[in-house]
């Protein structure tokens, strides 16, 4: 018995050793289970779809609070009592440790888009329409990111390939903004041509469609002062039967409920994927921004939007009601689940009005302006009326944008685009240097990347 046991042990030992030696490589190969290895993703069309939704996820994070810091914080519609970004932006004392000087989320979005743009086509055989539509969305979101980056920091590193190895140049330099703008145009033209016209239902508002690409193109051309192209793309938006202006009775719902027919692209949020709208606008004395005196005084008599935009019951209004509805008074500093409307039809109509005016087509400009004024319960303006009230037609349109698009993150870029930023802000905070119109690059970015040079004003 002993001997048998001895032998069996020998056999067991020998066998185990052989097994262990022969398949040690397999024993030690462990692939991820709940995630993909870098090489293991982008195998199927559902991977491709998921990769693109992942870009939207980064977009949610990017604009959660920064749509207002970037688009409103430095402009005249808001005022603040809040230390940190709101105060420093409003006082025009920007520094390189501002939260809004970080571009981390923008580049994370770009990185995800670059992965999708490179790998989505590898999933599909030949020219799959679905694949091209996905790439078109990815390129549109990349363009959106770069468009903000260029407007906030000027020259920025232009990265069009995903980072997959430490051997790549991980210390990119800044690319001139003209080149970046050209890339944005190329991406948006591709998106305009290849995005889906519609998805059906609510998805038409929260995913990038052809209309969304056209709306972005309109903004891009206005920024580049290419007014004829802006008019063309705006026309495509206005002719798109997905979009129509809501009535003034439903105007509030554009923001409080979302998914209205006026919306072209809004970033979707929900109970778990939340943003900072409440903290930005709705906490009363503690919110980041409240309506400035000049903004409150800018309303024309009889403007039906006023009661919908801010708390008119207070002599010193502190709450912006626009996103939460008239009478909203909950002061809890919690995140919000409302969508953030990025582009809507009224915005594009007013941009088109501005473009016509720039090309001397004032009649067309006023026609478009009056569409928006009429809805707000205001009388039509003719040229003389515009001059009497606002000095000139351009100012009348800009004023209309100030009210109609208030707190939606357009005001600062409107001021910069039309060259009025210094004129408007100098009396408020002393802004007087063109170079100061850009943000500083965040200290952390400079520390991490020695190839970056700070914007001249902040050196």
């Amino acid at each position: 018995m002993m001997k048998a046991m001895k032998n069996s042990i020998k056999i067991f030992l020998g066998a185990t050793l052989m097994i262990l030696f022969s398949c040690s490589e397999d024993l030690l190969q462990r692939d991820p289970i709940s995630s993909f290895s870098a090489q293991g993703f982008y195998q199927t069309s559902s991977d491709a779809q998921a990769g693109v939704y992942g870009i939207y996820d980064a977009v949610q994070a990017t604009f959660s609070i920064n749509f207002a810091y970037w688009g409103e914080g430095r402009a005249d519609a808001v005022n603040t009592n809040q230390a940190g970004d709101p105060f420093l932006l409003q006082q025009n004392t920007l520094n390189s440790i501002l939260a809004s000087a970080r571009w981390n989320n923008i580049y994370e979005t770009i990185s995800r888009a670059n992965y999708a743009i490179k790998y989505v086509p590898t999933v599909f055989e030949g020219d799959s329409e679905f694949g091209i539509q996905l790439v078109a969305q990815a390129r549109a979101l990349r363009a959106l990111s770069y468009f903000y980056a260029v407007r906030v920091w000027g020259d920025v590193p232009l990265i069009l390939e995903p980072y997959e190895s430490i051997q790549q140049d991980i210390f990119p330099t800044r690319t001139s903004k003209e080149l970046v703008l050209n890339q944005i145009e190329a991406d948006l033209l591709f998106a305009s041509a290849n995005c889906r016209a519609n998805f059906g239902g609510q998805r038409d508002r929260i995913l990038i469609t052809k209309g969304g690409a056209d709306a972005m193109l309109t903004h891009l051309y206005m920024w580049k002062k290419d007014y004829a192209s802006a008019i063309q793309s705006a026309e495509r938006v206005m002719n798109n039967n997905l979009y129509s202006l809501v009535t003034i009775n439903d105007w509030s719902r554009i923001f409080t409920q979302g998914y209205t027919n006026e919306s072209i692209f809004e970033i979707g949020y929900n109970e778990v994927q939340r943003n900072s709208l409440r903290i930005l606008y709705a906490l009363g004395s503690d919110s980041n921004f409240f309506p400035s005196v000049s903004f409150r005084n800018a309303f024309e008599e009889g403007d039906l939007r006023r009661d919908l935009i801010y708390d008119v019951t207070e002599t010193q209004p502190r709450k912006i009601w626009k996103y939460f509805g008239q009478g909203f008074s909950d002061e809890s500093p919690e995140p919000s689940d409302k969508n953030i409307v990025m582009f809507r039809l009224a915005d594009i109509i007013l941009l088109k009005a501005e473009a016509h005016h720039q090309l001397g087509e004032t009649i067309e400009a006023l026609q478009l302006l009056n569409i928006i004024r009429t809805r707000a319960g205001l009388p039509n303006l003719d040229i003389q009326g515009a001059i009497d009230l606002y000095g000139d037609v351009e100012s009348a349109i800009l004023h209309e944008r100030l009210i109609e698009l208030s707190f939606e993150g357009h005001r600062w870029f409107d001021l910069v685009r039309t060259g009025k930023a210094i004129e408007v802000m100098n009396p408020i905070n002393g802004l007087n240097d063109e170079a100061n119109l850009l943000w500083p690059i965040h200290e952390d970015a400079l520390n991490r990347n020695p190839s970056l040079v700070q914007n001249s004003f902040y050196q």
Partner: protein
Amino acid sequence: MSQININALFKFAGSQLVFRIRLLLLFIFIGSLSASAQESSIKGRVTDSKTGEPIFGAIVMVKGTSKGTSADIDGFYSLGNVSEQDILRFSYLGFETKELRVGNLSELNVSLESSTSDLNEFVVVGYGVQEKRNLTGSIASVSSKEIAQTNFQDPISVLQGRAPGVQVTSNSGAPGGGMTINIRGNSSLNAGNSPLFVVDGVPIETNVTSSLNGTENFGLNPLADINPTDIESIEVLKDAASTAIYGSRAANGVVMITTKRGKSGKPQVDLNIHSGISTVSRRLSVLNASQYRSAVIDSYRNANSNEAIIPAVLDSLSAVNNGDFDWQSELFRVARQNNVDFSIRGGSDNVRYAWSSSFFDQDGIILNSNYKRITSRLNVDFDVSDRLTIGQSVSYTNAVNNRSNAAGSGNLSIVRELLIRPPTFAMYLPDGSLNGYQLGRRNPVGLAELSTNINKSNRVIASQYAEYRIAEGLKFRSSINVDFVSMKEDTFIPTILDFREGYNTGSVRSSNNITWANENILTYQKQFGTSHNFGALAGFSYQDWKYERAGLDGLFFTSDNIRTLNGAGTISNQDVNIATEHSMLSYFGRVSYDYERKYLFEANIRADGSSRFGRDNRFGYFPSAAVGWRFSDEGVFSNANFMDDGKLRFSAGKTGNEAIGNYTSQGEFMVGTNYLDFSGASPSVMPNSGLTWETTTQYNAGVDLSFWQSKLIINFDAYIKNTNDLLYNVPIPRETGFDFITQNIGSIQNKGLELLISTRNLETKDFSWTTNFNISSNRNMVKSLPENVLTNGFIQNGAYHILKEGYPIGTFFGWRFDGVYASDEDNVNGITNGAQGPVYRGGDPIWHDLNGDGYIDQNDRQIIGNATPDFFGGINNDFTYKNFSLSLFFQFSYGNDIYSEINHQRNSIVRYNNLSADALNRWRQQGDITNYPKPVRDDPLQSMSRVQSRWVEDGSYIKLKNVHFRYSLPSAILNRWKISKLDAHITATNLITWTNYTGYDPDVNSFSGLRVGVDEGSYPQSRTIILGLNIGL
């Protein structure tokens, strides 16, 4: 060979001695079974000199030969073939060895004195046991006796102050709360600094983290699952010679926990019960309601706020603001604890068993926090035949931890709310309901009483082995080990604590962590001639780790009374179902040789292959060697009769660290980056296929001395530990889309000295006094960091620390606080806050303008402290008088700084925070001379929030950590009652602390990795007094 019945020997060996010792004896005996000549025979009886009881299994050897036998159950032995010149050597574990000449005697009765020195003890080493006196490595050990003197319910706490070179700090004073254990300094940047824990040979998983608020709650104690009463000994392997046999997981040392096993003979029944109470060890000052209101008004005024609004908190007539609370009084309580522990240990000829069970129930000092634990263990060994022994150790632990939320600065934190919640907030609303939510703050009493934050775990640690003695000195052992942890966690926050109507939230997580291993070891032990002892070991093992987690988060529960997720109106499923795995294949070996136990030599090697590393770098090789010289046996010293033993030892070797993410080298795409309901995925880890081990090379020199029959024992060790190829998450430009990439960079050095002195100061018939003292000093230094990871010459390591060449890990970096400007004019140089910021005025802090450029910015930061102690240790004094015994254990740490984040929190008003009573001395008007700056709403100049020397405090302390007073019933009474033991004891923990630190307790650590020495405001420590009874049958 004929004289010794081998069967009987094996039976004796197996049946009498505890398992770990048996192994070694087997080596010795099997190695010594060679034939010899014969003369006459001798017999006799071996007894205990103290009790007169027979010593069953005492070893009787003919000196200089391999001839020997052992005493039977009545202590009798007989030995044939001895000559008159032979010297008999009588030995037994725990007794002094005695040598007597045979002469012309035919009967030789011997009484052995119980050993007071620990020199003859055996210690557990990697894959074996070793006689303590023959150690060549550096090993600290803590015995069951020492454990019994404490009231700690986990093995890590026991080590605090008792093992030289082992630094233990508390992350949390919560029942079952986390500890940080650090052996010979931090040797890793982010690959983990926790040692490897091995329980009865099973390497166990210690990364058992809570998946809900895990880090924010300062962790759980993964070893709280082991009942300390079950522990026979804890050994801490420190130098490379001791640890290298564990290779790639041994760079931070190895802690070996050995549980008690059965002995053949009459069953020993033990019942231990205790009950006790705990109170918070210290309370901190806060402002009362009127002092608080005045501070808030100051903060508004100082902010020059154009706000006309009077903050609601000032309205003392408002129903929600008319309170006046010290919230500590509302939340702290006198907490009780109870423990029952029952065991039966014994065995027959072929079977030995140790069976134990315990129930522990401890309330925390914060309302409603509680920890309950049931442990149960069975260790059995069977002798199947002369050659085969099989056995199993199984332990099962069920723990339910009702936790208090300590979550950082969030509004869920009970612990921070204790100190910073406005005293004015009312507890109840006029309608009698709880004031659950006010100004972004949840009511902490409501959180403690009404919310759920519970962690339930089940753990099985099991090991099954078979050991086959193939031939003389040669045996094979194979074991299968399993460590299985299943954890379920629930959280729930009821509607009343939320600001929204009908809005309640709940989460559930369920996780399984299973580690299994197969280990196969061949050992050989042989004595050649009379002087050459040779040993060898070869083995291989395969280990596999799997972790799975599933869970749900829900909102809008139908009722606050249904807290399971089926009651949720909305389910949000986010990153809660994941699985990861990891495997390791290892080959290891050891050879040892000694000549007359005078010249000792040992060498180890281990090869580890890990799935975590890239294909090309999978295997790492970890060799070590040690030599020892017992100089006391050399001629020069052999006449020095004041010295019993003297030994020098040296060791060197290499160990590794593989503690990185399971898939880091491959790169990762994470799923769950969803957009609304659309499933998304995105790149999350940038691949680096070149990743490999972190390796530590360690040199150790030591000396062990024993004087005057072990009245004075000194162990001294000096070491240098160099760690290279540090695994580090190197920050890279965010333009890449990634935050960092894990790389092997740089090196760290630890060097230190450890001294252990134990003395028997006084020994009379009735009275004895012994002292154990240990002190350790470790110097940690970052030796090199690659240029490309440095900014301004250093790496910012979290908010408070930097990593810089030439400086230790735990270096605090920030602004130097030089007091407060008494008036605007005091700022004569017009120093400004940042290049374009406002000029500092009266009441603002005076920051040291390091570079003298006239403004305070990032470049004015400097080193403001260091979290590592100059030295630390403990001293234990044991006094016995007749049947009374008293042990006083002091533990100390000297020269370490604490960054008191909690003091920042409780001195920073922000909006409505309450302040410490120090704020009564705040700057109020021009000309005030004080060290307390003016409170400013929102702190726009970061007066309080910037990392600053004001929050760095001396963390040195001495603690009367443990007092243990025991009365044992005299044996006369015991005999009459037919019981073997009846002891009553009082044990007090954390009785007195001498320190200058102003927080709750200087024994504090942050919860994560390298954030050493930061007091983040964890669950406070408590002072505990228990009464206990030990009964033995």
